[in-house]
Each structure stands twice: as C-alpha cells, then as structure tokens.
C-alpha cells in the first residue's frame, strides 16, 4: 500500500459531533491544494460524516480505517 504523507494530524478523539468535521474544515482550509491531513476521531457518526463532507466539498477521502474505537481518515485537499 502506498504511503501517503500527511502534513498534520487532527486529533478529534473524544470530541462529539460536529467537532470532528468542524476541526477538519478548519485544518483543510490551511492546506495547499493536493496536500493531505490525517484525522483521528471516536465519534461513531464521523464514519459517514467525513465521507459526506468530502463528497459535498470536493476534497478527497484517501483512506478510512478503524482501530479499536478510533476511526482514522486521510483527506486530500482538492
């Protein structure tokens, strides 16, 4: 599997909806086009929310995985 370099990690573990998405929106805005960011969240809603947010905003969800109770996403700015 190719390794995607992420410039920063958004640690939204323990935060409830909609904070993982709010923090993601804030962070992605600071990225250069094509740069990626890692998001860690424990909110179960984030699995669908992150995908929906990417679909609407046009950013790319490169990876999505779960380890224990932590959901991990890698998002690339369009």
């Amino acid at each position, binding site marked *: 599997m190719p390794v995607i370099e992420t410039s920063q990690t958004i640690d939204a573990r323990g935060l409830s909806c909609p904070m993982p998405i709010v923090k993601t929106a804030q962070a992605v805005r600071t990225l250069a086009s094509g740069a990626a960011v890692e998001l860690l969240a424990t909110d179960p809603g984030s699995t669908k929310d992150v995908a929906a*947010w990417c679909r609407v905003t046009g950013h790319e969800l490169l990876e999505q995985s779960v380890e224990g109770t932590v959901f991990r996403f890698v998002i690339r700015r369009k």
Partner: protein
Amino acid sequence: MDESLNLVLFSGTDDKLQAAAVLAAGAAALGKPVNIFLQYWALDAFRAARIGLDHGLAAEAGPAGRAAVDALAGAGQAPWSATLRMAKELGGVEIQACSLSMDLLKLDAGDLDPLVDGVEGVTAFYLNAGDGQIVFI
C-alpha cells in the same frame, strides 16, 4: 449545497440551543451560509452576562435526560456557545437578534454576547433567507 440554512431559535434551554449549534456548525463546515434569528427565550440566553450559565433543559428531558446531558458535558462536549463560536470562525454564519424580542426583554444591543452580529426585524430575516430552508427550534 450553497442554499442557506436559516434557523429561528425560540427556545432558550441548553439542549435545544446545543442541537441548533450542531446544525449550524455542520452547515458551516459544508460551506452553507447560515442565518440565525434569535427570538424570545433563545435571545434571553444570549445575554452577555448569562450566556455561560445553566439554562436548563426542555421539559421532556426529565432527570434521565439531565443525567445524559451532564455525562456528555463531562466527557468534554463543548457548550453550545463554544460550538457557535467555532461555527462563526468557519465563516458564513450570521446571528441576528429579533427586534421585537429585544423590546420584549428590554434589551439593548450592548447587553448581548458578541456572538450576536446585530438586531433586525423579521422581514430582513426572510430577505436574507431567500429560498433557503427555515427551521424553527
């Protein structure tokens, strides 16, 4: 998705304000313009001197609801005012006080928390809402 979301906040209890703040922040994260119009008891909750206080819960919450809300807050859920502040930082979120409710509560603009951008009447609210959805909470 660039149609606006327009929230009319009437209730001033913390649970309803939190639910409204979540809707506003989610819409702001998607890039939707959000207009929030504060009426009656919701406006009362935005007094600068009281915004951080306990505003109670809707009647249907009951003791079990109170415990559940307290547990979420204990686990680190941001209060609704903080959620709204973050939503405003994302941009596109405008919060206006209803001028009739300002009269009702005998408030001046200076009595309100800085989250509130101004005072307007219902016609200005409708004008800003355009064809977007209007949700009453």
